[in-house]
């Protein structure tokens, strides 16, 4: 196996990170921890973008997209945490199971 990092290596790492994030998202009852899973997934996506920008033909675009992703992530975390806080105020628990109001 070639130990020199190539695009595929980065993609594999990012895939693993994505899988871990997904695992966190679907197995965690705590909203904040689920959010952490989302962050991991976003990071893995970003890693892909930057890796493509480095090894691919797209030039700087990958990094620009990466920046956008970080910006969006920041906004997402702010709103999501606000929602979690509101949920906590209402239900006294940060668990996602409590957010059942929209369930039919």
């Amino acid at each position, binding site marked *: 196996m070639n*130990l*020199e*990092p190539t*695009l595929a*290596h*980065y*993609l*594999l*790492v990012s895939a*693993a*990170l*994505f*899988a*871990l994030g*997904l*695992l*966190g998202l*679907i*197995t*965690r009852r*705590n909203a*904040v*921890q689920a*959010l*952490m899973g989302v962050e*991991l997934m976003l*990071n893995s996506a*970003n*890693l892909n973008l*930057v*890796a*493509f*920008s*480095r*090894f*691919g*033909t797209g*030039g700087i*675009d990958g*990094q*620009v997209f990466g*920046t*956008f992703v*970080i*910006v969006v*992530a*920041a*906004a*997402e*975390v*702010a*709103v999501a*945490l*606000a*929602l*979690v*806080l509101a949920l*906590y*105020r209402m239900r006294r628990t*940060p668990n996602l199971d409590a957010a059942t109001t929209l369930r039919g």
Partner: protein
Amino acid sequence: MTASAVVFWVLTLIVLASAAVVVLSRSLINSAFALLATFSGVAGFYVLLGADFLAAVQFLVYVGGILILLVFGVMLTHRIQDLDLRAEARQLVPGLFVAAGVFILLAAVATRTPWAIGAGRLPSATTAEIGRAFLGKYLLPFEAASILLLVALIGAALIVRKREDA
């Protein structure tokens, strides 16, 4: 094996191990602080990939902003007297299967696809380039992102605000 390869594998170890801690740790606060290692590791990847501006942004926003927000979130959603912030996992085994499946899928795609690998961009100064891209080619998304940030900020503030009458 070159130095960059060593760094790559060390970073891989850090990122994946800490991400595993984030996901699997039973203590919320440990997850939150393991996230620090993950974010820093990813920033390291960016440096390795020649995206130093993005690495700085990653550090500033993820470590300085999002991580602290998450820690605040952890603390605010628990009574301050709760010393051990235990978080339970549900459906761990099916979740593992799903995650493994996704990983295998992604790995297969990543390795099998004949990516159009160009000459690539060797690591060099990117700040000016990114700046030009923001204010030229991507002006509209840039402005949209700034508006999105503003809206998210206001929205978040509005949601968490305690109503006086409540």
